[in-house]
């Protein structure tokens, strides 16, 4: 491992000021779980790491905002999110997801900011936050901006964040009575990075589905929202027939990529099966 400098700024703004958009070898580190793996495998050689560990404590906190949405500071760990009862009441699917995500050692240090900025498609949280219609608030020398998580990822390990822009917090809008589900499929071991993640939220008004958000993670370069399948579902009762048609629509429209977790054709089959199961689960949830 090559030598590098470690900076420990006290403020998020201070961290931003240390970044250089022209120099990708300077990066912030929050939990460090992804960065350390990249450094150990010689994929990333930093000249400077900027630890966010000492920035304002508010970025490690979360809670309901007056407008009914839920704010999660970027430095909140995945364990913080797993154990926060207010968040579990607001969006139970997050706690359910955490139980499937990695292990307690990683969750204790990995942060939501890191999970969103890392850009590895084989992650669980991004599709869930897209399905929840969450947004990130970012900060850079140009000021703050709000980006829907659905638009954050640009490709394989790529986000639309500029080189000196950091995630400040995540905002999830009120979910009201929306139902949600996340199904994870691993192919090499029970605990693994997902080969497929299916995140689903929908309004079941009576029995009719509305405003469905179906998001497929891990099979492509970034989380994929499946408008074709949503169109099959919205306005319909979640009958076996509708569910089967939606599953087929998802399998047909989602482009899967072969990797060490499975072939493209197999992943397409997984999409079909898991979309079906996610829809069945949502249909059977007690409102």
């Amino acid at each position: 491992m090559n030598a590098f400098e470690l900076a420990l700024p006290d403020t998020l703004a201070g961290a931003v000021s240390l970044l250089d958009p022209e120099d990708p070898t300077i990066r912030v580190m929050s939990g460090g779980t992804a960065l350390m793996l990249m450094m150990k495998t010689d994929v990333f050689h930093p000249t400077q790491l900027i630890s966010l560990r000492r920035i304002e404590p508010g970025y490690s906190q979360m809670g309901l905002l007056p407008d009914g949405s839920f704010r999660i500071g970027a430095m909140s760990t995945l364990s913080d999110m797993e154990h926060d009862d207010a968040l579990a009441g607001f969006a139970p699917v997050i706690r359910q997801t955490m139980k499937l995500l990695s292990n307690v050692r990683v969750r204790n240090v990995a942060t939501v900011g890191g999970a969103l900025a890392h850009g590895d498609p084989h992650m669980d949280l991004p599709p869930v936050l897209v399905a929840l219609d969450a947004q990130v608030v970012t900060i850079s020398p140009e000021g703050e901006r709000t980006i829907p998580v659905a638009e954050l990822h640009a490709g394989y390990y790529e986000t639309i964040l500029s080189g000196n822009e950091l995630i400040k917090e995540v905002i999830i809008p009120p979910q009201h009575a929306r139902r949600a589900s996340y199904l994870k499929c691993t192919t090499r071991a029970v605990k693994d990075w997902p080969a497929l993640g299916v995140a689903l939220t929908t309004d079941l008004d009576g029995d009719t589905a509305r405003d469905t958000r179906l998001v497929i993670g891990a099979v492509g370069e970034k989380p994929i929202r499946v408008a074709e399948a949503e169109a099959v579902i919205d306005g319909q009762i979640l009958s076996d027939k509708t569910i089967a048609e939606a599953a087929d629509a998802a399998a047909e429209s989602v482009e899967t990529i072969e990797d060490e977790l499975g072939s493209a054709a197999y992943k397409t089959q997984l999409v079909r099966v898991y979309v079906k199961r996610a829809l069945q689960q949502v249909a059977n949830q007690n409102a």
Partner: protein
Amino acid sequence: MNDQITQIRAVGQSHPRREAREKVTGRIEYIHNLRLPNMLYGKIFRSTVAHARIVSIDTSEAAACPGVDMVLTGEDIRKIMPDPHFGVMFHDQPVLALDKVRYVGEPVAIVLASDPNVAAEAVALIDVDYDELEPVFDEMEALSAETFVHDELKPGIPEIQFLKGVRDTNVGFPYQLRHGGDVDKAFEEADRVFEHTFRTHPSAHVPLEPPVTVAEPTGAGLTLHTANQSPSFVRYEISRLLGWPQHKIRVRVPYLGGGFGAKLWIRLEALVAAAALLAKRPVKVSLSMEEQFYTITKHGATLKIKSGLDKDGRITARKCEVFWNGGAYADIGPAVAFHAGMTAAGPYDIENVAIDSFSMYTNRPVAGAMRGFGHPQLIWAYENHTDMMAHELGIDPLEFRRRNILREGKEHATGTALNTSSVEKVLDRVAERLQWGKPFERGEGTVKRGRGFAIGIKASIAPSTSEAIVRLGADGSATLMCSSVDMGQGSDTAHAQIVAEVLNMPVEMVHVVHPDTDVTPYDTGTLGSRSLYHMGHAARLAAEDAKAKLEELAAEVGAQPGSNVPIWELFARKNGMPVGHVVGTASFIPDGHIPPDPMTGQSPHITPYWMLGATGAEVEIDTETGRVTVLRMINVADTGTQINPKIVDHQISGASIMQLGQTMQEKVHFDFGQVTNASFADYKIPSMLDIPQIETSVLDGAEADGPFGAKGVGETGSFCVSSAIANAVFDAVGVRVSEMPITGETVYRAMRAAAGEPLEEE
């Protein structure tokens, strides 16, 4: 002894593992933690190409790097080792590459520096110019390839000198066995003939402690502190390479963080020894987890098996052809071809058998010994084959095996009569535990359930030697000095129990000295489940010798036979104070071994003991994804008397979990010789969540000639897991997988193919 309070028996009790507390509290000695004054760290520069002539090596930039002490290449090694090729069978592996590189990851140079990070940085500055040669990766392609990994075979040990001078072949060693009459004629006369081909993939041992060695020049000699399973061999081989007398080399081995065969023979020792002598300072090399994948693997193989049957469903003829992918250097691969080849026809009573088993050279990392020594691969083939034939013939697989099984007194294909009825017994036991023949819940909807089983046989290696010293002290304690390596299998505890039993003393009073070739005598190596039998006997005999010597001492100092003069007093009468020792020694080689005929593999006495096992598995399959969940695994083993039942249970379940990983999850992936999943992030060994309910079932009965009726059990649990699961998968969904790992995709593809709607390939 006579001043003992009464104790529970030493042998047969689950005494706690003596090192457990020290291990879990982080106090045990591992070489990984060893730092010597003035020590240099070595980092290896490795080949990035699979097969090439080395045109030039430029180390100048690395050598000029601040903090670097030395950079060594193969030519530097020659200064101290005139012929720097090592190997337990062939002398074919260069300490550092000389004229050629033969696999991606092969050590080409080493940088020495006081700071390991400096060494690692400097390694990146080495520049090698290669003239690339055509590589060969697949064992079947290697058979007919025009490219040769080695220009000429370099046999080392006397038994294989007939291969000297053989050129232009990738066959490193051909083993053959011919049993009974004319096999081809028997096939002609057969009512039915079945032929199947199976493949197994390379997997990795991945002990949590990767290989690590420290070499320390000591005036006239050299001390190696190393994580190795065969310290006696290390001493011999390093002395051979250096041209030194053996006594100038001292090899010390404390505990190992796992071995599984990865740390046998020479791993880093030759390189680190040469580096330390050239640098005239202690040198340490500890491999990273990634480097481990390039250092040693388990053989992948292609296995062809053909059987002829009469109209009653009895197998009358069998032909096996096995091709072992041994990688670039022989290591112990030829012995895998030989030893596993011996039992390739399985535990069946077959009149006419022909076996050919070839260890092949390829441009892949070296394949060596791994728990099971080739048998899990073979059993995968012959027990799938057995079920496939039973299915075709419409005979229940249990009944089919009973018809063909090798019964006590019958001749095994090696010509050795079976001295045990355990084959029948393991089969009966696994059938009983599975409640075979009784109704079974088969699942519904998209969930299908099935069950299957397999049986397997292995001969213990022969001949081999264990020596032991037992020293009895005036304080009433005993010290066992032996070169067995406790790498987690509990040998220290079991050997101490044996000594305590002979000397009738509490197990805690037996101290075990770890391998130190200045002190502990010769042992072939900790491998092939041989220690408990061989070292167990040596320890037993040495303890008996010590006991006899104590009785002599008693007579000498005037104690009446059977009197209760305490030990300390015996010594005090002799030495004036309660001090001193008597020393018992022993050397054990099993009686009666007759080497097999080189042409036919026949021998009336081929092994000191057989190892027999069976596994039963129950699986559940998601028919929409093919995902297999193993629900229950039953491992049956013929263990002889259990010296320590808890350790036996853990060895059997541990071996089965290891094989389960290789069956369901683990595979080393290569891309043009490069390992693409060389880390635990991508090479998935089982976690607790991947492990089913496991039951161990041990046969009663002693091993006739074993120490207290015991024998080795370290590998038995690995034998049958893969084929039991494959047979259960077939039972559940009616498809046969011929390759591992048995992933959801493998099974789903097989199901789609069987349904006539194959899933598209990439």
